[in-house]
């Protein structure tokens, strides 16, 4: 018997990495001024060669072109990649931990907590942290939500998965009610709240990339380190204890870091649905249920998927934009249903 899968796994990771690079370049080219795009009358389009040279810092190109590529498009693509990777990895870890196909990064009510944090700032107009107040508030309330959920579920040093799930639903409902209340008392800010709730990457900037990237990378790396434990816990928590896994500590770490990456990206992009739920399912069908390959491939595919989805949102009804959540669901769901019907390897449904 051979030490089988190592080679196959490396190939999967290599293919997905190439696909990610390719999608970044493609996304850079698509846009009003890009080589792929309808262009603006009397203005010269940016060519593919130009994009390459601008990226490499060569050539003497117009400053407007440089800023379109480097200050507008590139940070947005990076942010889409980070958000997609974070949601897909966190969703995958949550599904494994909860042994539940309905689990997503938002399963413990993080989204409602973050939404309340954001709407609180929108409605009250608070500005303690300047322009970052809304993000910081969303981030904090997401963490508060999970902290409360975890401690409700904890009893005699043990946190049963079912209790966590129910506590998550309860606390999530509570925050949802608060968000509804905020909407109700808001006046003109209602539009802002609704837009935030739909999620999107329109406000992307390098600053948002810088604050989310370290948190997301840290969180993803920690989750990857626990992939063997996640596998073992698929066969039941008591079994996992017998196999030498410290189940409660593992649970705590996975919840903490999945929450951290989710809260970090939700605070900059709002609530983007679908990616964290469906990408892990798609990858489970494609690469199998072993978290040692499932987590990294979900991570890369999440990034690729959201980069594509976001590129579509800004190119379908140029120059206007749609919320990316609409695109992710409209295009992702048919593909998912196709895979589901074609190859039902994981009999979860």
């Amino acid at each position: 018997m051979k030490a089988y899968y190592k080679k196959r796994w490396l190939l999967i990771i290599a293919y997905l990495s190439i696909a990610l690079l390719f999608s970044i370049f493609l996304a850079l080219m698509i846009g009003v001024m890009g080589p792929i795009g309808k262009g603006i009358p009397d203005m010269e389009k940016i060519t593919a060669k130009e994009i390459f040279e601008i990226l490499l810092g060569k050539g003497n190109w117009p400053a407007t072109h440089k800023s379109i590529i480097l200050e507008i498009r590139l940070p947005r693509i990076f942010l889409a990649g980070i958000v997609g990777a974070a949601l897909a990895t966190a969703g995958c870890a949550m599904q494994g931990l909860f042994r539940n196909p309905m689990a997503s990064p938002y399963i413990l009510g993080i989204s409602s907590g973050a939404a309340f944090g954001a709407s609180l700032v929108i409605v009250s107009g608070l500005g303690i942290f300047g322009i970052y107040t809304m993000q910081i508030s969303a981030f904090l309330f997401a963490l508060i939500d999970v902290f409360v959920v975890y401690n409700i579920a904890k009893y005699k040093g043990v946190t049963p998965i079912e209790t966590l799930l129910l506590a998550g639903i309860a606390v999530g409902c509570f925050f949802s009610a608060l968000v509804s209340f905020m909407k109700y008392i808001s006046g003109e800010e209602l539009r802002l709240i609704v837009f935030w709730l739909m999620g999107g990457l329109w406000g992307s900037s390098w600053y948002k990339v810088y604050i989310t990237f370290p948190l997301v990378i840290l969180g993803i790396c920690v989750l990857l380190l626990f992939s063997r434990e996640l596998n073992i816990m698929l066969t039941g928590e008591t079994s996992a204890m017998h196999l030498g896994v410290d189940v409660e500590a593992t649970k705590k770490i996975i919840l903490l870091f999945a929450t951290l990456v989710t809260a970090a990206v939700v605070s900059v992009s709002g609530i983007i649905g679908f990616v964290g739920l469906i990408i892990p399912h798609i990858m489970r069908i494609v690469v199998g249920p072993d978290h040692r390959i499932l987590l990294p491939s979900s991570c890369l595919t999440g990034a690729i998927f959201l980069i594509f989805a976001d590129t579509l949102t800004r190119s379908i009804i140029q120059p206007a934009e749609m919320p990316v959540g609409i695109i992710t669901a409209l295009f992702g769901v048919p593909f998912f249903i196709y895979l589901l019907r074609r190859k039902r390897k994981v009999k979860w449904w």
Partner: protein
Amino acid sequence: MVVKIKVRNISFAYDSIEALKDVTFEVKKEILGIIGPNGSGKTTLLKCIAGVLKSEGAILIDDMQINMLDRKEIAKKMGVVPQATIITFPLTVLDIVLMGRNPYKKKLEFITEQDIKIAENAMKATGIYHLAHRLVTELSGGELQKVIIARALAQEPEILLLDEPTSHLDVSHQLEILGFIKKLAIEKELTVIAVFHDLNLAANFCDKLMLLNKGKIFAIGNVEEVITSENIRKVYNVNVEIIKHPVTKKPNVILISPAKD
């Protein structure tokens, strides 16, 4: 090296319901069967020994307190086979058996040739080597139970805890599984503690028996000392006849009628 388990005055209560009261015994290099009616504390006792439940009193493995050891240390010494395992994910048999190597692995450490050798031997010992690349979701109950036993063997334990390991299986699987466990126990000098519902299976398989009643040890000793019509009537409240098994010469319980108090 032969491991000795000492259980000293352990008690355990689920909230206010006492499940175990002052249980004390020792096992070393033998197969100890735990029998007793439903709710007598058999499984609770096994969980306490496995360190899953925290009991009062002391459980010592080679004179080390079990609650001083971390989970990996315990898992290197002790393999546990539950009644039934439900695995809904399409992992292969080899994947599952290799999980038994987890206690020996550090973070980021990959499976080695050595680990695969050990997994192969475990699969051969339980007769599932030919299933190595099959998905566990496609196996029968008996095959799956053998996979779980192979996984416990891959831990290279010195102690094996079995919780009614064959209660869901047909007679041929029952005899096959208990047969190879007994063989392994002798070959590898394992200490085995097994919970049984079936008194005759227990009588044939175990070197020693412990009869639990309401969380206390009612009788412990050789099979002949424990399986008596007197003991069974007092604990299970049934009238039985004990005969000698024509082949194994072990006591065999024939059920007669419920006893009237």
